[in-house]
């Protein structure tokens, strides 16, 4: 067949984009989506994440230069890409099943569509509300139906723009499980999210979009391991004067050395005896949030 899970399904090279009469939104954007991976697209509000997704799906006019290539075998592009837009795209007076079925019947044969609808409703736990009209659903339920309707045809390339907006914990976990399952099935996934925590949970690779330009950050694990642990200690002396010590290091030696800098009347082993009160002890593991804050800082 010639395709391994690491096959590049979509490759964009040097894409630029500007809305008519506007300033450039994307400059020389480059991105690759490989099967079995999920790329997390990081970027501040207005960085151009949604525009980049529009360019990748060729649903926007204004792309100049560069090359966009799909390697999805015999599949036509319309079947190869699924795109869950940031705005919920559903017909409110249609039922959940009818909304999911609309795209399935457009793209798949009758029997295949029927099976795909049933499978998708089950995967997104929508069975109990399949016959409910969408305008009767909560915001979170609509988001799940939107995701289900966008990927009912099981495309190998799946783009999700802010998929966790308005979801409660349980529904968010369902989305995380689905994205991981898609990755394991070999799909190439691209996801944007407001919160780095979501990207961290969903992605295997990271791309940063800043000033319209993409920067490939590599594997998520590598990005996180380049970050340092943070140890924060805060407390009060018997005299009610506060003390604070923050350590940002992965080195145990450095921690020991820093602890020596604590006020002379503060000894961790004798905090209670000496009357010191320890207010906070916080050990923060490397996270994408800190990285995102640094990356998005001007």
């Amino acid at each position, binding site marked *: 067949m010639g395709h391994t899970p690491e096959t590049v399904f979509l490759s964009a090279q040097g894409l630029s984009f500007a809305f008519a009469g506007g300033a450039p939104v994307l400059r020389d954007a480059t991105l690759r989506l490989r099967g079995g991976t999920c790329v997390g697209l990081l970027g501040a509000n207005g960085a151009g994440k949604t525009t980049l997704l529009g360019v990748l799906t060729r649903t926007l006019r204004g792309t100049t230069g560069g090359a966009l290539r799909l390697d999805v075998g*015999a599949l036509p592009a319309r*079947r190869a890409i699924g*795109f869950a*837009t940031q705005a919920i795209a*559903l017909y409110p*007076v249609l039922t959940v099943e009818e909304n999911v079925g609309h*795209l399935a019947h*457009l793209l*798949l044969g009758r029997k295949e569509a029927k099976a795909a609808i049933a499978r998708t409703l089950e995967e997104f736990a929508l069975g109990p509300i399949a016959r409910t009209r969408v305008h009767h659903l909560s915001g979170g339920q609509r988001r799940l139906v939107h995701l289900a309707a966008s990927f009912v045809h099981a495309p190998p390339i799946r783009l999700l723009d802010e998929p966790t907006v308005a979801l409660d914990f349980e529904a968010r976990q369902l989305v995380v499980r689905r994205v991981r399952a898609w990755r394991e099935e070999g799909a190439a996934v691209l996801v944007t999210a407001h919160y780095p925590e979501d990207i961290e949970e969903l992605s295997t690779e990271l791309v940063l979009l800043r000033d319209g330009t993409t920067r490939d950050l590599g594997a998520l694990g590598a990005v996180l391991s380049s970050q340092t642990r943070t140890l924060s200690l805060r407390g009060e002396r018997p005299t009610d004067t506060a003390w604070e010590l923050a350590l940002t290091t992965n080195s145990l030696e450095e921690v020991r050395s820093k602890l020596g800098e604590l006020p002379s009347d503060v000894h961790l082993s004798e905090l209670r005896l000496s009357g010191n009160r320890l207010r906070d002890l916080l050990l923060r593991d490397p996270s994408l949030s800190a990285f995102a804050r640094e990356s998005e800082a001007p």
Partner: protein
Amino acid sequence: MSHDPSSPPSTTHGGVAGFFNEARCYALTEWRVLARERTAMVFIFILPAVLSAILGPGVSGLNAAPGAMGRATIGFAVMFSYMVVTYSGHAFYRDFWYHTQGRQALLRPSKLAFAMGKVLPACAMSFAQLLLFTGFAAAFLGLPLHGSLPQVALTGAVLVASGAALGFLLFAVTRSTATLSNLSYLVLVTFSAVGGAIVVTEALPGWSRALGHVTPHYWALRALNEATFGEGRWSVVLQSAAVILTFTAVCATAASLAFDFRDQKHDTT
């Protein structure tokens, strides 16, 4: 399920079957929306019925000739069948109201199949209204039928097709639902007025009658008059249908050229 994109799609539609499947899918969704929202039913069926009952005697004259009330009813039916302009335009704008336009831009169905599917339900409603009102007028209001039902059906079909094409064109050249709605109501009233749907052409001033010739309404009423009060000559009906079809073809071609799945519109609902 694993993804192996190198394997060909199993049972997707292609060619003619694909074309009709796309048209069917869009038509089915549009039909469900129209049927459940109900406003189209009100404007296409109920409003002309009410106006015919209220204004029919006034329009046809208190001492009207036999069948004049039936003629007035047909006029209101023709007038409100052109609500197909509004509902066809709304069918396209619906994707912007519900944010589904991105999906259409991604799928890029055949423009013709997409447009056909979108307008078919509104066309079916308007066509059914014309047949229903003509049948009612013939059965209860003394409207003669010197021609044949196929003549009425042909005239109704080309008239609603022209309205659908105009609706598609108005969608393609406007940027908001409000603009489309305003223009389509303007079309509804002016075409009906100068085309002789509200007051018979003979009672209109000369300039108005001259202007009426550029409206599908004038030609539709000419054909319907021939099929009812007239001699039922096919030549008159076919000539009128040809004029309306020309209008339809011009609108549809212009709309198709102006329309792009990637167009951005203002959502004003």
